[in-house]
């Protein structure tokens, strides 16, 4: 039976929800606003900023000073590349863990997740030295490898929980129906797992796109993605709020748009299994 909710209560709850939403979104909104101001106006006290002139100057400056397109393509290659490789490794891994679990499967999953609990900076020096000695510094290949590895545990976990929801009897039915392992995966499992694979892929692209520790430490120019592009505006030359904001807006815009269009998939991925 539906609970009766008074209109006042509805209004209050709605207002509260919008306020919290606004509060969370505020820093992003502020960055977008500052991007359209002159450097002089950008450091004024908040209300003055809102009423000062709007300008595209910072965007012109950013375009003139940096190569946005190169950073953008680097971000695309790093996030999509690392996600694809992670999926290629994680799908069979999650598959075997979900459908042919061994005695140590649970331990293995916990161990994989535990690697995410270690602060990345803890392995910075050995990683840096490895990259230097193998000539991988500032290379896309090296960074794709790192991003693949740091997100792999989450990808395996997400796919594992997703595959666990697929009833084993359906796979057994396919086996009884004469499906080979290949047909079983191709005709029965994959079509059923597509939503889960898609949401895992989207989430991982976003995580890789925003990854800022390794991308800042291990790149300088050639392989530098958009995180490096933003960081270059908080340089020893000083802090340029308007340009930094314009650069940030340009960096987050693509992933924000991707997230917006795929939010249905994403929400399903993040809340999957919450209710049957």
């Amino acid at each position, binding site marked *: 039976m539906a609970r009766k909710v008074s209109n006042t209560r509805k209004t209050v709850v709605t207002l509260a929800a919008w306020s919290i939403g606004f509060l969370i979104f505020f820093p992003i909104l502020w960055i977008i606003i500052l991007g359209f101001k002159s450097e002089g106006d950008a450091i004024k006290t908040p209300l003055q900023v809102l009423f000062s002139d709007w300008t595209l100057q910072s965007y012109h400056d950013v375009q003139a000073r940096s190569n946005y397109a190169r950073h953008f393509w680097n971000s695309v290659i790093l996030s999509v590349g690392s996600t694809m490789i992670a999926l290629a490794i994680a799908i069979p891994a999650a598959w075997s863990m979900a459908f042919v679990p061994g005695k140590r499967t649970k331990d293995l999953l916990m161990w994989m997740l535990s690697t995410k609990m270690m602060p990345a900076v803890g392995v910075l020096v050995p990683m840096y030295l490895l990259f230097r000695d193998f000539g991988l510094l500032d290379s896309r290949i090296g960074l794709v490898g790192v991003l693949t590895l740091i997100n792999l545990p989450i990808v395996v976990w997400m796919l594992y929980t997703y595959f666990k929801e697929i009833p084993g009897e359906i796979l057994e*039915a396919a*086996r009884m*129906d004469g*499906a080979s392992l290949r047909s079983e995966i191709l005709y*029965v499992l994959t079509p059923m797992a597509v939503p889960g694979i898609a949401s895992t892929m989207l989430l991982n692209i976003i995580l890789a796109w925003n990854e800022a520790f390794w991308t800042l430490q291990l790149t300088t120019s050639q392989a530098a993605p958009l995180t490096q592009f933003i960081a270059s505006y908080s340089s020893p030359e000083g802090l340029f709020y308007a340009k930094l904001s314009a650069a940030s807006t340009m960096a987050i815009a693509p992933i924000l748009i991707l997230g917006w269009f795929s939010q249905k998939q994403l929400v399903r991925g993040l809340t999957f299994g919450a209710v049957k």
Partner: protein
Amino acid sequence: MGKITLTQVRKSFGEVDVIPGIDLTIDEGEFVVFVGPSGCGKSTLLRLIAGLEDTSGGVISIDGMDATDLPPAKRRLAMVFQSYALYPHMSVRKNIAFPLKMAGMDAAEQEKRVNHAARILNLGNYLDRRPGQLSGGQRQRVAIGRAIVREPAAFLFDEPLSNLDAALRVSMRQEISELHQTLKTTMIYVTHDQVEAMTMADKIVVLNAGRIEQVGSPMELYRNPANLFVAGFIGSPKMNLIEGPEAARHNATTIGIRPEHIDIGGDGPWQGVVGLSEHLGSDTFLKVNAGPLGTLTVRASGEVDIHHGDSIRMTPQVGKLLRFGADGKALK
């Protein structure tokens, strides 16, 4: 086609022997029901026959051929699962055609067989729907359709009706029985419901703790249970089992008498007070507190005018009393 022989088939999960060793022959065209309480190993036995579980020992042969190590698809068996296990992303038509597609059959022949199965199972109007748009009974029919089209050597049913409501279960039960009469293919049916076992089977295999307690026709098991377990398990309501001096009087440790084999009235040797009377319309079942004999269930006619608190006398019918020894086995 469809003779299945199990020779000393064993299954253990780690240290636990789920099935310590079973010998069984299932004849061609027979409807065999595996029945037993939860955890007795009946589903495991079916899965061993299907090839979904590996045996720990013994030989499974199908039509005289050793199938112990064959993969499920090569055994020419079709299975209907408890959860139906339909492919949710495929239409009913594609679900039913899936085994044919896997066998590489041409499209025209697939279509012919699917339509034939749909006609037998009254699924003609639902062929383009997805399983999610069907009721439980229709889903079960699709699952059966998927089994039929393969023209298997034998059908395996793993508690196929337990997800259906009571009324539907009765009608599906009859449909499966009729299907068996039409197709005349061997069927192995697993259930914990002894009513299903009694009504459907040519041969019942009663299992307990991974062992076969008795094999026989429904009425054989009903009339002559080999031991106390079968006596208590087959029949609804349960057989009355009486121990103590009354059993000793018949030279047994336990005596058994079915509710319908106790006559009420006259000056019968047993006496008791009615605790509960359940009027089912055609019959009335009385729970009688019979003092040293314990609580007895007695069947009376539907019209009987006996109520809670009435004192009655009862007579066990001559020749219907079963005697069991100290080891639980029936005494001749």
